């Protein structure tokens, strides 16, 4: 970080063990469902069994008669208490979907919350929920998003259309001349199915309202405790400083726990009426029914090439299914698909059109790499193009990938990429594979009747959004009187190892031993505002916050040490939890002794040095976003009799700048990559044609197990970002890169059979069908 002199980094860059693990390995973590408060009641939702139905009446008497049932809330009880509902990152002026907490008059998807039962335990609440009688009048439902624009039925009557919005750059016709003059034009329509983030822990809240003090404490499964607080404050019309949100351990999020949704709104509105602590923890069926879906989209894509395979133009016409209650407003994520479609390639001309659609299905929510369809569509199209032009797909990419000399590079939509290395990651991944050797192996296998394939994908993604709600992050560091260090960060870690990361960064920034640093995160009462874990932002933003705060303390520590050691300020070095004279380690003072002066012997402080060793600072991002790139290479074998796909090798070369902890970086890449493999091969949050969800258990919604995953090989290229420490975001990339690499590998394996893959997932039955019929 420019302008800041640091002690030599000792912990950043090393594979230290995680500080979170001791509690999590021994069953001592604290997840939201582990919270039990005296007198606590339990909530259970009554949910619509119809994709679309009028609600003519709700009879609650039988449920209320069950011993132990305390309340049955319907829309008339909760919804009038709602003051405002909007997310800080989106703002109050967005043309958002209306979000009634409980369904009013009309249920809009199977799983739509219609009533909320509160009882002394969850078993009783579930019993009573079955006794709530809802008089539904089923209505025609909008199920298929590809025909929703012409359906008579409307998901939201007052919107007047099932098209949420259409957002486009230059019209497709603006590229007509380029396409007409191109040596090769490649067209395809590519479909991606609905997937769900599926954190192993579902959503949940425990809300403790104190009528006497007017204070609310919320224990939440969340990626953003401060957003839960802000949202609840607006929802209830209650000052923010009366609300405290606490999260210790959150069992995965992957985007699903970034924003407050309708179910949580209901619990927030009910809690003050209940008057005692109220717990709601969803079960897996509810999570797969009502917590949101992602992906479910398609696009007509085309590219123009000159005679030697250089890309001349690219166009994507993108349509996404956003369900009934998308969170957030889905129009900007759709635009990101359009803006990034040309990827890390030299593309002189490009444009896009996007359309977002309401249907009577569960709402669209964020999921790791929410715009990743741009990479799927582009990379699959490039392989189709290579086959059509009879060019090796590797050669086609070598001709077009951005090189160092091209940077900074502004793509036709106006995205300016810099500090990336698409060609280097691509070449590194290929050399790790030994591409030529694989092609020889493939040819030998084909001669023996076996079908092997190789696929690649390259992407560039914006991490660390640097504006608005996401643009700053604060750190408080307290060097206690004993010399022990506590660092306070907003937090929201849902498996992201943010405690370990912050401890490493702080130890280096202050020159203290790792074991002397502890961190407190996820408690809005003691941490400064921060936007939480989203957008692959935490590494860079917490590094900025820790460095800014540590700098204040370093100056103070050095001033006290210089005075105590009778040395010049410029000669003091901070290391090993103390200070010493440079070149003379024996002339030293411990951090405990420095703290002793700062807190208890202030008469000895040098002139102008403040007492104590506590500081808070807020870092503001230096860039609109930090670009990060990677190349994925996958090989597979397809059994053409059974349709079974086995992944043989999986290689990721990633450039996330310097690594704070390679274990954490590789863990993030692995997790995202395997989620993407799941999306390519197994997962499908499916509905039947009537709008009934048919994958609401883990027997139906198939996430990968250890038996399906290859061992991932990692390559690292290190191009520093302009941000703190040169770090970049690495949380989402794996999920962006892997689906196209897998699809391309399978397509390559089956190319001799004339198979063209354009729909996911690549389930065995689909593979068999394609082998028999060719076109997909």
């Amino acid at each position, binding site marked *: 970080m420019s302008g800041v002199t640091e002690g030599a980094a000792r912990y950043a860059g090393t594979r230290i*063990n*995680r500080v*979170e*693990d*001791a*509690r*999590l*390995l*021994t*069953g*001592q*973590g*604290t*997840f939201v*469902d*582990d919270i*039990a408060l005296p007198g606590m009641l339990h909530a259970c939702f009554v949910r619509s069994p119809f994709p679309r139905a009028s609600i003519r009446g709700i009879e609650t008497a039988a449920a209320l008669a069950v011993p132990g049932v305390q309340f049955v809330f319907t829309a008339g009880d909760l919804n009038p208490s709602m003051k405002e509902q909007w997310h800080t990152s989106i703002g109050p002026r967005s043309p958002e979907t209306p979000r009634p907490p409980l369904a009013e008059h009309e249920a809009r998807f199977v799983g739509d919350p219609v009533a909320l039962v509160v009882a002394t*335990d969850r*078993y009783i609440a579930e019993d009573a929920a079955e006794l709530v009688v809802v008089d539904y009048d089923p209505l025609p439902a909008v199920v298929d998003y590809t025909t929703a624009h012409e359906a008579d039925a409307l998901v939201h009557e007052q919107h007047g259309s099932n098209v949420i919005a259409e957002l486009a750059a230059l019209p497709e016709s603006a590229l007509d001349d380029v396409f007409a003059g191109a040596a090769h034009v490649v067209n395809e329509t590519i479909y991606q199915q609905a997937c769900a983030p*599926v*954190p*192993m*822990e579902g959503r949940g809240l425990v809300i403790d309202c104190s009528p006497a003090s007017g204070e609310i404490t919320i224990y939440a499964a969340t990626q953003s405790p401060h957003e839960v607080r802000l949202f609840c404050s607006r929802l209830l019309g209650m000052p923010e400083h009366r609300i405290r949100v606490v999260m210790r*351990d*959150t*069992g*995965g999020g*992957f985007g699903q726990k970034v924003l407050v949704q309708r179910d949580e709104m209901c619990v927030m509105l009910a809690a003050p009426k209940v008057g005692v602590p109220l717990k709601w923890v969803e*079960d*897996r069926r509810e999570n797969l029914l009502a917590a949101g879906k992602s992906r479910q989209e398609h696009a007509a894509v085309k590219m123009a090439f000159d005679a030697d395979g250089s890309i001349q133009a690219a166009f994507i016409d993108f349509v996404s299914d956003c369900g009934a209650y998308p969170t957030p407003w889905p129009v900007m994520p759709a635009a990101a698909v359009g803006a990034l479609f040309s990827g890390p390639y030299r593309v002189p001309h490009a444009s896009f059109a996007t359309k977002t659609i309401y249907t009577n299905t569960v709402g669209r929510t964020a999921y790791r790499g929410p715009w990743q369809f741009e990479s799927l569509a582009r990379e699959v199209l490039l392989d189709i193009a290579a086959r059509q032009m009879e060019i090796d797909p590797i050669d086609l990419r070598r001709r077009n990938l951005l090189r160092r000399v091209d940077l900074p590079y502004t793509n036709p939509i106006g995205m300016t990429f810099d500090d990336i290395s698409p060609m280097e990651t691509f070449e590194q991944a290929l050399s790790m594979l030994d591409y030529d050797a694989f092609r020889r192996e493939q040819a030998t296998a084909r001669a023996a009747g076996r079908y092997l394939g190789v696929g690649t994908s390259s992407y560039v993604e914006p991490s660390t959004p640097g504006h608005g709600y996401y643009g700053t992050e604060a750190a408080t560091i307290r060097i206690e009187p004993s010399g022990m260090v506590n660092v306070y960060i907003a937090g929201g870690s*849902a*498996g*992201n*190892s943010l405690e370990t990361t912050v401890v490493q960064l702080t130890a280096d920034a202050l020159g203290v031993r790792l074991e002397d640093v502890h961190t407190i995160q996820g408690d809005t009462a003691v941490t400064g505002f921060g936007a939480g874990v989203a957008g692959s932002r935490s590494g860079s933003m917490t590094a900025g916050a820790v460095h800014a705060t540590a700098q204040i303390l370093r100056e103070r520590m050095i001033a006290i040490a210089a005075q105590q050691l009778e040395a010049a300020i410029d000669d003091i070095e901070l290391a090993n939890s103390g200070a010493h004279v440079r070149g003379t380690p024996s002339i030293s003072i411990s951090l405990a002794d420095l703290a002793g002066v700062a807190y208890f012997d202030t008469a000895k402080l040098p002139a102008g040095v403040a007492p104590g060793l506590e500081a808070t600072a807020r870092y503001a991002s230096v860039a609109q976003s930090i670009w990060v790139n990677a190349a994925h290479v996958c090989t597979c074998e397809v059994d053409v009799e059974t349709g079974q796909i086995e992944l043989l090798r999986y290689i990721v070369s990633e450039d996330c700048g310097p690594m704070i902890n390679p*274990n*954490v970086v*590789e*863990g993030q890449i*692995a*997790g*995202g*990559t*395997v*989620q993407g493999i799941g999306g390519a091969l197994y997962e499908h949050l499916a509905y039947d044609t009537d709008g009934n969800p048919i994958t609401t*258990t*883990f*027997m139906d919604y198939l*996430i*990968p*197990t*250890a*038996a399906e*995953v290859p*061992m*991932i090989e990692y390559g690292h290229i290190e191009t520093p970002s302009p941000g703190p420490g040169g770090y970049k975001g690495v949380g989402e990339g*794996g999920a962006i890169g892997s689906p196209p690499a897998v699809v391309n590998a399978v397509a390559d394996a089956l190319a001799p059979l004339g198979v063209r893959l354009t729909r996911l997932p690549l389930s065995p039955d689909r593979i068999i069908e394609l082998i028999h019929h060719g076109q997909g």
Partner: protein
Amino acid sequence: MHEVEVTVTINGAMRTTTVEPRLTLADYLRDTCRLTGTHLGCEHGVCGACTVLVDGAAMRSCLMFAVQADGTEVTTIEGIGADDGELSPLQAAFRDCHGLQCGFCTPGFITSMTAFLRDNPAATDDEITGALAGNLCRCTGYQGIIQAVRQAAGQNR
């Protein structure tokens, strides 16, 4: 609802309680005994997060009633390490190999694999992968988990 007396030895301590017959073993451990390290990831027996050892056998506590555990010895994640807090070799291998991220599924992996490695102390890599396929993790891509179990098995080979 009438209640039934059950006596279970949990992590070495005998406990007698009256419970509703429909109370699952998982909820008994979590809510009645306040041993919240046993986690519920699906409540239909697929994800394995709630796995505990019942008389040494790895069982999905969401699919058992507490009354079915009457007279048994149950070991939960809280009872896997040493009393002084020292991690078991398998727990330590998970730590060393980055075998966990959010940690929600971890107790089920540790309990399942503790039973597996006891019965198959020098398991092969393929046997390990097959055994692991009964538990779901969404964070790690299984990379560190597979390495951790291989490391623990390797110490026995």
